[in-house]
């Protein structure tokens, strides 16, 4: 018999960036908040300290910070006619777990989206007409604009201490930054990272070809910085162990470094770790949440009553939780009815391994997670697609996030995959290879969706999330075009070997690409095509708010976290100034 606990004002499911920030805002407003995190508690000291944290086998290869697949996996298939099978190993994407969530082991690439992204359907149809869209594509407007979100982007960037140089200040293009970025109201809080040698070579070639290179905006702090919460971050030492690792130096912006110490001090907030939320409970009308049920590490079930439930458990888990809880109508791709699970998308990644001569010493192991020189000329709709026959694009990034000994073994095509010749090739190319990283738009498609698997269950007996996804042909064409353009830059750099490697279908889960899973609980103005309204409030259950990349109707070229930060503070504002004053539907 589950034990029923004393009621609280707010139950937060998942204590990552979204959960931490929303919990802090509401606890500071005087509400009693409980944060339920399924993973362990962990802190910069002692858990992220060197040398133990620099264990590549534990963290990079064996995915030490990720969800335990033996207890909770996901199933996958390309197409709804196939049978989905469980992913027994994380490769393509790496769902995190633990206090701080993915904010602990992300790289810190801190981007904003373009103005066009938030009105994507309107913008594309106006510029090119509907005919440019393949029949199966499903792009949508967000129902909230970039201009409305701008102050919240600013707030999140100052919380993190994002490092960069503005390119567009209130509509005025300023030199040194990205001239193609959406307008920002003020300069970044910290100066950009140091440019790597590969990035400098890329910059020169890109300029010669008429592009506009700049340093990637980064949440790896570049100087001692005290954020508006009073927490100080240290400068990044370019150790090259960023993605998949915690930062020992308090240099990477994570919940642990930018907000949690303040949240933990507030007696209104209570953190419960190793608490696996099973479902959001609804009353008999199905339109009001009464709280959540969760299981602790000893296997005891609890019912936590709450007036308000915030679902901030990472995009994929958020959608699953809605489905398990019966909130919103599940999406059916064959009839195109329902909304939960609809518009699932990803990130269309491609690479251009570039072998420079043996006299060019890159020392790529000196890197922060968001080091790199980048061009925005081919992102989203920054270029004219009129005669190209596809929509979307990629940013092109040259730099490294590290060159760790187990993971980084670049060799040219045709090299044997093991043995003496392989070793010789690694020796020849290790310090002379730059790998361009192209991060591309992922266009939502009718058939790509999330739902509950009919066969496989987790350790708590609940159905696993089923992912049905393949790259739309539009995105494959887009990747081919932009990757080709990137290869031209590589050749301009004087590369000896350029390996043009666009993304091709089918999508497989067996090679790492990105953990930018988006959609499934989409934000919008129309309840028939969205799960939450413009304030991230569930259309169906007004005292449930869902904040994550699951809100994105389609994915832009950029890493989602910066935009999520804007949505987090936008939702916090809506909760404090609207919802708490008058609970109920805000739209």
């Amino acid at each position, binding site marked *: 018999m589950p034990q029923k606990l004393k009621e609280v004002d707010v139950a937060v499911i998942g204590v990552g960036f979204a959960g931490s920030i929303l919990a802090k805002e509401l606890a500071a407003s005087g509400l009693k908040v409980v944060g339920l995190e399924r993973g362990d508690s962990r*802190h*910069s*000291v*002692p858990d992220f*300290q*060197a*040398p133990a944290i620099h264990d590549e086998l534990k963290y990079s290869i064996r995915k030490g910070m990720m969800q335990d697949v033996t207890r909770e996996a996901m199933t996958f298939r390309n197409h709804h006619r196939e049978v989905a099978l469980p992913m027994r190993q994380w490769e393509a994407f790496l769902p995190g777990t633990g206090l701080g969530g993915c904010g602990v082991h992300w790289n810190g690439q801190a981007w904003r989206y373009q103005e066009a992204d938030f009105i994507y359907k309107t913008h594309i149809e106006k510029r090119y007409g509907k005919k440019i869209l393949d029949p199966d594509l499903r792009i949508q407007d967000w129902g909230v604009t970039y201009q409305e979100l701008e102050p919240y982007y600013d707030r999140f960037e100052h919380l993190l201490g994002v490092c960069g140089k503005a390119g567009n200040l209130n509509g005025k293009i300023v030199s040194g930054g990205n001239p193609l970025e959406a307008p920002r109201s003020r300069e970044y809080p910290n100066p950009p990272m140091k440019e790597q040698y590969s990035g400098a070579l890329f910059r020169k070639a890109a300029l010669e070809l008429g592009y506009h290179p700049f340093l990637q905006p980064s949440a790896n702090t570049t*100087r*001692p910085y005290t954020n508006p919460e009073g*927490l*100080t971050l*240290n*400068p990044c*030492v370019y150790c090259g162990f960023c993605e998949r690792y915690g930062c*020992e*130096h*308090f240099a990477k912006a994570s919940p642990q470094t930018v907000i949690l*110490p303040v949240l933990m001090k507030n007696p209104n907030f209570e953190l419960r770790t190793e608490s696996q939320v099973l479902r959001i409970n609804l009353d008999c009308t199905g339109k009001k949440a009464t709280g959540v049920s969760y299981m602790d590490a000893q296997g005891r079930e609890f019912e936590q009553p709450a007036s308000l439930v915030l679902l901030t458990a990472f995009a994929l888990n958020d959608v699953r939780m809605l489905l398990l809880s019966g909130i919103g109508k599940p999406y059916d791709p064959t009839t195109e009815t329902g909304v939960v699970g609809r518009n699932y998308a990803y990130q269309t990644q491609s690479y251009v391994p570039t072998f420079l001569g043996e006299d060019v010493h890159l020392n790529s192991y000196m890197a922060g997670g968001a080091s790199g020189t980048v061009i925005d000329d081919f992102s989203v709709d920054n270029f004219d697609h009129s005669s190209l026959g596809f929509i979307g694009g990629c940013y092109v990034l040259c730099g490294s996030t590290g060159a760790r000994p187990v993971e980084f073994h670049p060799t040219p095509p045709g090299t044997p995959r093991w043995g003496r010749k392989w070793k010789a090739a690694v020796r020849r190319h290790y310090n002379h290879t730059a790998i361009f990283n192209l991060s591309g738009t992922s266009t939502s498609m009718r058939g790509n969706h999330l739902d509950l698997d009919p066969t496989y269950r987790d350790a708590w007996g609940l159905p696993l999330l089923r992912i049905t996804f393949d790259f739309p042909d539009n995105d494959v064409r887009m990747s081919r075009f932009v990757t080709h353009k990137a290869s031209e830059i590589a050749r301009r750099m004087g590369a000896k070997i350029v390996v043009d490697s666009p993304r091709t279908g089918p999508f497989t889960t067996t090679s790492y690409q990105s953990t930018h899973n988006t959609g499934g609980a989409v934000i919008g103005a129309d309840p028939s095509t969205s799960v939450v309204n413009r304030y991230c409030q569930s259309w169906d259950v007004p005292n449930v708010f869902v904040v994550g990349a699951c809100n994105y109707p389609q994915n832009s070229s950029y890493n989602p976290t910066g935009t999520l930060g804007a949505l987090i503070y936008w939702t916090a504002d809506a909760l404090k100034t609207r919802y708490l004053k008058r609970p109920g539907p805000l739209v």
Partner: protein
Amino acid sequence: MFVLVVAGIIVASYLAAQTGTPNKSISNKSQMAVRIVAEGTTRGAVACARCHGFDGASDGSGAFPRLDGQSPQYLAEQLRHFASGARQNALMQPIAKGLNDDEIDAVAQYYASLHAVPFPSRPVPAQLRDRGKQVAEVGDLSVRVQACESCHGPNGEGEPISGVPYLGGQYSHYISVQIQMFRQGYRKSQQMFVPAHNLNEQDVLAVADYFEQASRPAVK
């Protein structure tokens, strides 16, 4: 003065012994270094050995840092910082200004190549030593300071190629004073800024004592 003359004679005979044989084991740069260490330069650089000794171990008082086996990149960088004023020190600034670029590199290499025997260290109370070890190896979350060894390496052995100085075997008193220098801005370092500000006096003494006693591997 007498010591200097004797040292000068020793050095001079050493050099004389070398000139007669076509032995290339001592490069011109090393010869220059030995000369500067023993005699200084005419441009205001006092002989290094006067305070730091020929073996780099100084006099054990902790007033002058141990230089033997230190990262050559670090030594050269610090001399340049003294010369430019980026690192404030009334004693070292005129000395560093009296050295040109080649001379800086030469003396840095000289001391980097040495391996002196550590002076016997005084006993440290167990509580202080344990606390020092804790902060050095693990850090302190309550003051947001990471483990010293995150940058300074296991046992504070340093990272010579990156120019991170060793702390293991360095004089406790010198380490304590340097943290004060970082705190008060006489030395500027982005990486040392927060640790220098956030560690209290007791903890500074504790880590300084811990590192003086930490063993470090023989210079390669």
